[in-house]
């Protein structure tokens, strides 16, 4: 018996140390990436980065056009995706809860949630760039919106599901029409949860590269024309990092740091909002 206990103890120690070792290796790798990003990124941060356009190799420049382009396209994508996503999420959580269509749409939405983003890019290319014969910031925004959409739908759906039924019944009993119950009662009580979802969706799309390759493309110069190709951070990082020029590579690291930092801020904001909503309930 004691031999068995000893063996079990030994196995336990071996497995636990393996688990700790795995955890340390994994965390070390992730820490390494974080450290690389911060050290290379901070080295590239200066005033030029925010004020000058993307340069030809060998001359002074920054990422101003790409920063503005990314912000514009992400913002526009969120403007498109948020209302549609909230309404669709409302339908799936309320009206279509038990219907066949609702079930299918929920399933499809969950699949779109992790569908390869490059395929979204191809699809948007097919109905925007192909007919108009030119790349445009609109196409890029639509592609990003299609990636943000499922995230917003899903979070809206989950958050609305948490609103207690008696709350709706009380509003309905006061004589409020259905849409008013939804807008003033349900959306309002699920509001901060839905905002969390929107922030997470914004974080998700701000780093997306693949869908922009065939839609917004890139632009060496300053441009705010939505009908023309627009510079954006992810594609600039991709192009510049693969180039053989040191100064372009430095800009790529600077851009990578900026994007990651922005995403981190969005994620932390989302957490703060959701923590506040949980403490309120």
């Amino acid at each position, binding site marked *: 018996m004691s031999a068995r206990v000893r063996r079990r103890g030994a196995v*336990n120690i071996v497995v636990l140390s393996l688990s700790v070792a795995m*955890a340390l290796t994994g965390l070390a790798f992730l820490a390494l990436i974080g450290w690389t990003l911060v050290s290379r990124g901070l080295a590239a941060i200066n005033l030029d980065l925010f004020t000058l356009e993307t340069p030809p190799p060998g001359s002074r420049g920054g990422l101003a056009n790409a920063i503005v382009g990314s912000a514009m396209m992400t913002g526009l994508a969120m403007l498109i995706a948020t209302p549609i996503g909230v309404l669709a999420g409302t339908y799936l959580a309320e009206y279509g809860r038990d219907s066949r269509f609702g079930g299918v749409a929920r399933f499809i939405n969950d699949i779109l949630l992790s569908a390869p983003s490059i*395929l979204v890019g191809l699809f948007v290319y097919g109905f925007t760039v192909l007919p108009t014969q030119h790349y445009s910031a609109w196409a890029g925004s639509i592609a990003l919106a299609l990636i943000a959409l499922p995230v917003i739908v899903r979070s809206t759906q989950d958050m609305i599901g948490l609103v207690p039924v008696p709350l709706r019944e009380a509003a309905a009993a006061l004589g409020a029409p259905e849409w008013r119950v939804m807008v003033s009662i349900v959306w309002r009580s699920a509001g901060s949860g839905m905002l969390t979802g929107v922030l997470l969706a914004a974080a998700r799309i701000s780093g997306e*590269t693949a869908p922009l390759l065939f839609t917004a493309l890139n632009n060496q110069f300053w441009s705010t024309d939505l009908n023309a190709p627009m510079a954006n951070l992810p594609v600039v990082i991709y192009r510049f990092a693969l180039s053989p020029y040191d100064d372009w590579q430095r800009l790529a690291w600077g851009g990578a740091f900026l994007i990651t930092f922005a995403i981190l801020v969005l994620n932390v904001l989302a957490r703060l909002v959701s923590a506040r909503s949980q403490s309120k309930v």
Partner: protein
Amino acid sequence: MAVLCPMTDETLAAAAEEPRAAPGMTGTLRLYRRQDAVFRAITFLSAALVVVVLAGMIVFLAHGAIPALTAMGPSFFWTSDWDTVEDVYGALAPIAGTLITATIAMAIGIPVSFGIAMFLTEICPSVLRRPIGTAIELLAGIPSVVFGIWGLFYLTPVLQEYIQPALIDYLGPLPVIGMLFQGPPFGIGILDGGIVLAVMVLPYITSITRDVFMTVPPLLRESAYGMGCTTTEVVWKIVIPYCRVGLIGGVMLGLGRALGETMAVTFVVGNTYQISASLLAPGTTISAAIANEFNEAFEEQHLSALIALGLVLFLITFTVLALAKWMLLALDKREGR
């Protein structure tokens, strides 16, 4: 969720036709009913858009793939010549590359993320649990292009100088497995792509696995400990069997991500249309091929061949994700959620 909901059309309709209602009241109710119908229609259309997106994607990919598939026939799937000059397109190399890099990613990513999840739920001092868990979740948000450039500038030189020569020297001469480690150490290649993917899916799978581990009722865990089980036995015999379905679902979500990932792989996979038994050789994946060539594809056949690749990727990921979703749904159902 209760089924009893008083705000259905029927209730309002019944109320509207209630003979005792005041005359002015009926008009208001009719107005409300109309507003509700409009609101409901708008939400329905938004939800329908989600379905339309997927349907549109399928139609675009299938329609765009027709020219290449008719020209190449089924040999598109099992030949590996990709020649844009001769207009010959065989997709075997990118398909194989996608599957192999994803397999490597899973082979490394699953044990490590299970290790971290076990560490977080069973071993780690509770003070550290939250910070480490949060850090991992935040890392899951790092855009894949960052993993790509890290792989290119940091991992690749290390692989080329230290790890690959060691693999060639020690594993190369072995029978069978040796085949996987032949040829010069290029650095970039299928193995490099697989490792970068593994690092990328790591935080993702870890946070799902941890969440799934947490669904085990504390009572079950405590009973096992109470019977004298060691931590290992609790995890292997109680925790993992209890959430088996959820774990497989979570892993498959990670797999879906690894299969469709573009940027993390494109930097380091080598972008060469070749199939080699050796993992050290450069190769390509479906998404890397599309990302590299799509903007330069002007010939109809070439464009169509790339879209056909997209169709293949869609079918593979769709299957994996649908299975994953189905398994996670089964878990939810069992938990009565």
